[in-house]
């Protein structure tokens, strides 16, 4: 039954990656940029939730909502101040700016909240489920994470497929100039994308810290990088791709840790990513784009 326990752990870790990866993939799909600061928005979200619960004694649900609101605001602000002025610049320039924003957020957190890790309280109101006479234990955090991930997936798919804004997003990601000619406000659409991605980052931050309760200014960095590779793994720009990529990555990481080597688990994750990209250079669900000659 160890196998099942590992699987559950993998899927729940993967669900967190998936939620983060959605933020990366949506922004990449629409603004064609790698938003390296996304991982740090996660960290900010977690800090906001932490202080709402610990210092203000707010109920966890309110804390999560507050974190989402602040991250949404932060995401839109970052886009407006740092990325929008560079809309016509090279992707490399935008990437470096994103790195600058990432450094800024990390160091802001360092100065504001210090480098010593905070012990994150759980936000999950219910306990673990024990199955098969104790052989399979599913923690409340795992259940919440997996359910949240599913809910996010359903809502986001419905949003992009059914609503006017969602269609505008898909149009902008397909062809920015054509979308603009069709009367779509590109800047507004991109802002909304950042808003959604950052709100998701806040959720991911809270879930991540509920599962691994140590919070410090670099908490978001590594999960950010991994979620980003998950997005690429699934095919960057694709929402179901980010989902599948994230969950697979979580499973691979946990199984790698359990069965191969605890220390080499990251290397295994990245090695699998490379193999996938070599076999299918646009990721699992990515579209192939033909260059017009």
């Amino acid at each position, binding site marked *: 039954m160890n196998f099942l326990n590992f699987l559950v752990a993998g899927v729940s870790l993967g669900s967190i990656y998936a939620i983060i990866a959605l933020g990366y993939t949506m922004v990449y799909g629409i603004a064609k940029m790698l938003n390296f600061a996304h991982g740090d928005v996660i960290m900010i979200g977690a800090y906001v939730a932490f202080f709402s619960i610990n210092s203000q004694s707010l109920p966890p649900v309110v804390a999560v909502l507050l974190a989402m609101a602040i991250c949404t605001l932060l995401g839109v602000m970052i886009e407006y101040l740092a990325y929008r002025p560079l809309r016509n610049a090279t992707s490399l320039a935008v990437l470096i700016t994103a790195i600058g924003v990432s450094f800024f957020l990390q160091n802001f957190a360092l100065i504001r909240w210090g480098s010593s890790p905070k012990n994150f309280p759980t936000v999950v109101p219910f306990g673990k489920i024990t199955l098969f006479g104790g052989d399979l234990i599913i923690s409340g955090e795992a259940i919440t994470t997996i359910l949240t991930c599913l809910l996010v997936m359903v809502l986001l798919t419905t949003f992009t497929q059914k609503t006017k804004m969602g269609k505008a997003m898909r149009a902008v990601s397909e062809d920015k100039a054509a979308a603009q000619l069709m009367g779509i406000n590109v800047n507004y659409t991109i802002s909304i994308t950042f808003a959604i991605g950052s709100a998701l980052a806040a959720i991911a931050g809270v879930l991540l810290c509920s599962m691994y309760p140590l919070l410090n200014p670099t908490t978001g960095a590594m999960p950010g990088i991994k979620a980003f590779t998950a997005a690429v793994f699934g095919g960057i720009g694709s929402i179901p791709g980010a989902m599948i990529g994230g969950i697979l990555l979580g499973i691979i990481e946990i199984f790698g840790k359990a069965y191969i080597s605890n220390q080499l688990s990251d290397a295994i994750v990245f*090695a699998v990513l490379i193999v996938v*990209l070599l076999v299918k250079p646009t990721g699992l669900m990515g579209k192939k784009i033909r260059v017009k000659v």
Partner: protein
Amino acid sequence: MKLLRNHRAGLDGFINYGLVLVFYFIMQFLQNGGNLTSTFTSQLVPICVYMIMAISLNLVVGISGELSLGHAGFMSVGAFSGVVASASLMESVSSAPLRLALAILIGGIVAALAGVLIGIPVLRLNGDYLAIVTLAFGEIIKNVINCLYVGLDNAGLHISIKSAEALGMDTAGKLLINGPIGAAGVTRISSFFSAIVLLLITLFVVQNLIHSRSGRAIMAIRDNRIAAESTGLNIIKYKMMAFVTSAAFAGMAGTLYALNLSTVVAKKFDFNTSILVLVFVVLGGLGNLRGSMIAAALLTILPELLREYQEYRMLVYSIILILVMLITNNDTLKDMKQRAVMKIKTVLNGSNKSTKAKQAGGAES
């Protein structure tokens, strides 16, 4: 005109050598006069190391046009193989400079091999995918070296990725790389002089490569891959050439860096270090080697200069980085900057012209 142009490319190169030499002599002068703080002195080798890193990464990002996010990985490979090489040669090569040179050479070769190994799959990919795979390789290298144990005894080198005990060395054995603890007790044989020499060699190789047929091919592929293919260029060959040369110099810089410290850990060469070097390259200007060197030097010293602001220095650093990117890349701000420069120029020229006009007038009359 023609001659002038050809000489200009050469002249440009010589200016770079000159700058390096001037830097060396000024630092020597200050050091001898006791005008250099000890922290600054300790930064001299790292400054050169980062200049070499920036030049070599510029070959990939600026000249070859491929975004690499794992350059520190090659530095790491060079650092640890250099440490092992230096320790292994301790008995047989007694001259420290010669041992350093050999260690750097070995570090470069091993990193170049890693470059070949990584380049074969990576260079088939395009754009952002290539970036993410180089990132992945950087993380893999860090992770693997973090679990690497290397020991040396009378029977030779022992390597394991499990534990120090698994090496099975005899009692006289010495642990060179101890997993996550890294390499401790490294004999420090790097010097500012050797760093300057390696920097000059790097400049020499990269500059001459760029101004040869191979360099033209590399840049042609960057500017237009399909046209380059249709002009009969072997895309993979030239991308590999840039990538592997770059990896080799990053490896050599890594050896130099490691042999300047008594303790080296794999964590030092992480994603942040790769990004740091990328920042030097972008701020210095893509394809601009002098810019890379200057940016590397300034940004390595900057945090030291901001030391009095202690905790705020990295925050200031990040704000400077964002502002510089905005000013150099935003159309409106670029225009404003250009107009300001023009204005200054016209003001300066204006005074120049009026004096010239006077002189010309004087000559006529």
